[in-house]
């Protein structure tokens, strides 16, 4: 029975991982870049929300409604300026730029908020659960999984049903030719990064609502997100969901027997997939 409980918790945790991974997947799919500060931006969003809740009398929903679009806008702006500049500077540049950014964000957060873990206060939602048979399902976990699925559905609809989404896929295939059919690839890149940043902000807020976060938590979030993407298969959003869920389940199940090995087990799953199924569990089309 406890195993069943661990399984359920693992799936819900996997939902959160997916939410982190979706942005990484999008940015790699469209621009072929990995944002090494991806996790740190999530933590930054979380701390901004914590600050807003603490300093103003805004309700949490309003804080979320401010933070998430703000991060999408930051993403668009960063892509149009710094990331685009580094894309022009050569293939290694974006990695190095985002790595530098990760260091800056972590240390800025340490400076501003100290190393103490903090939590986003969402009241009852953080602890409430409902029973399904013998196991208790936390609302916040279900919210995370639903948001992850919702994000993927929304992005898929955007990519497949809108003209801009179609052009995003075209840019991902061949940016040069996409320009010839009218695309402004920089704008499209900006949109993709905006989506990724919006998604990762949601993930950061949810993380901080479930458990307390410290300023340096971003690196581990990036690694989990990355593992989810690779396990699921590069370039497929539904694959990313499968990857996120697998990672969550493996970590939680192993933690049930030996808590100190849980993260290592997740890494090993990643290495196993890399060794025996490098195309990922759900082989991709491109985007």
């Amino acid at each position, binding site marked *: 029975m406890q195993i069943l409980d661990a399984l359920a918790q693992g799936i819900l945790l996997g939902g959160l991982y997916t939410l982190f991974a979706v942005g990484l997947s999008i940015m790699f799919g469209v621009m072929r870049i*990995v944002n090494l500060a991806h996790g740190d931006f999530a933590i930054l969003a979380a701390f901004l929300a914590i600050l807003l809740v603490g300093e103003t009398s805004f309700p949490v929903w309003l804080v979320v409604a401010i933070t998430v679009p703000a991060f999408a806008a930051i993403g668009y702006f960063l892509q149009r300026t710094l990331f685009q*500049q580094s894309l022009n500077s050569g293939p290694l540049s974006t990695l190095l730029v985002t*790595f530098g950014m990760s260091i800056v964000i972590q240390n800025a957060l340490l*400076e501003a908020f100290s190393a103490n873990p903090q939590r986003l206060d969402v009241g009852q939602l953080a602890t409430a659960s409902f029973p399904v048979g013998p196991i208790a399902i936390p609302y916040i976990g279900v919210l995370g999984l639903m948001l992850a699925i919702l994000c993927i559905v929304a992005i898929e609809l955007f990519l497949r049903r809108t003209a801009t989404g179609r052009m995003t896929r075209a840019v991902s295939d061949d940016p040069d030719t996409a320009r010839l059919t009218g695309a402004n690839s920089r704008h499209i890149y900006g949109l993709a990064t905006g989506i990724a940043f919006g998604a990762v902000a949601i993930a950061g807020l949810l993380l901080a609502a479930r458990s307390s976060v410290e300023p340096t938590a971003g690196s581990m979030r990036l690694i989990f997100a990355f593992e989810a993407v690779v396990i699921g298969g590069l370039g497929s959003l539904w694959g990313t969901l499968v990857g996120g869920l697998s990672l969550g389940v493996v970590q939680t199940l192993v933690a049930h027997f030996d808590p100190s090995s849980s993260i290592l087990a997740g890494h090993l799953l990643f290495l196993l997939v*890399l060794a025996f199924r490098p195309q990922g569990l759900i082989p991709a089309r491109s985007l």
Partner: protein
Amino acid sequence: MNTPNSLLIRRSRRSSNLSFVALGLVAVGLVMMPYVVYQSVTSSMVMLFVLVIIASMWNLLAGFGGLVSIGQQAYIGIGAYTVIVMADLGVHPLIGVFFGALTSAMLALPTSWLAFRLRGDYFAVGTWVIAEVYRLVMIKFQFVGGADGKSLVGLSGLDPVMRSALTYWFALGIAILTVLGCFWLLRSRIGLALTAIRDDEVSARAGGIDATRIKRIVYLVSAAGCGLAGGILVVDALRVQPDAIFSVSWSAYMIFIVIIGGIGYLEGPLIGALVFFAMQQFLAEMGTWYLMLLGVLAICAAAWFPKGLWGAFSQKTGFRLFPVGYHVAQRFDTPVDSRAPLFRN
């Protein structure tokens, strides 16, 4: 018509020959240091040598091999732990350092089988995960102290001043060896192949170069170098702590040094390490602000000055300390009219 015979191709210029003499003098000066300055100076310079080693290795990997890794701390850690374990078995730590390089290279081989399945940016994060795996596995072993780490035996009997000087010379020697090793490697056939791959991997493969094999060799060499650095660190500190030795900060340092100094130039890591070392000496007490400054500098350099300090300097002056490329030493000009028609009638 221009024929290859009308060009005289050389590798080194007179300035390079002079610079070798100058470098030799610098090396002699560095060797004399323990007799001249306080022990605190030489012991902080051990760190400089470690930085030179790991940055040169990262430069070899990323700047020449195109493999951006943020997981080289794995091999620093493995090198360090090898020294600890060998010392327990009775091997002298300074000998153990070389075993550290060997273990690192040996573990790098199976690691490369996995990591090389990831391309480009994903390779970077993949190596980071693998470094984490090494750390997490290492803290499972109680005989090396688990998460607490372990002290080094075998050097504690030595007089502290003598030990410090010995460590200094040892680190200096390895640093010189590493830099010369890179120089030699890049002038060898492997260096030629690397240049070809860097310019155009597809053509290089078509030209019969086994690009994956070449990259794997570079990866192994780089792992061995980082293993040496890890060994020096443990000989210097006399203990190892897993979270510190496997810290991703090492990668941050390597990247910063190489980017600031100039990626893809052998001189880059030397310049970058000096800059970084100086900043560390003067600014480290600023703590997080110092690290933020490093981050901002790295961002600016990577986005706007991808060639770094040495790249900018050598582009202006044409000066190279380590001539690994070729240049035209003399040209016997035959006027060639490129617009001359192929056929005349």
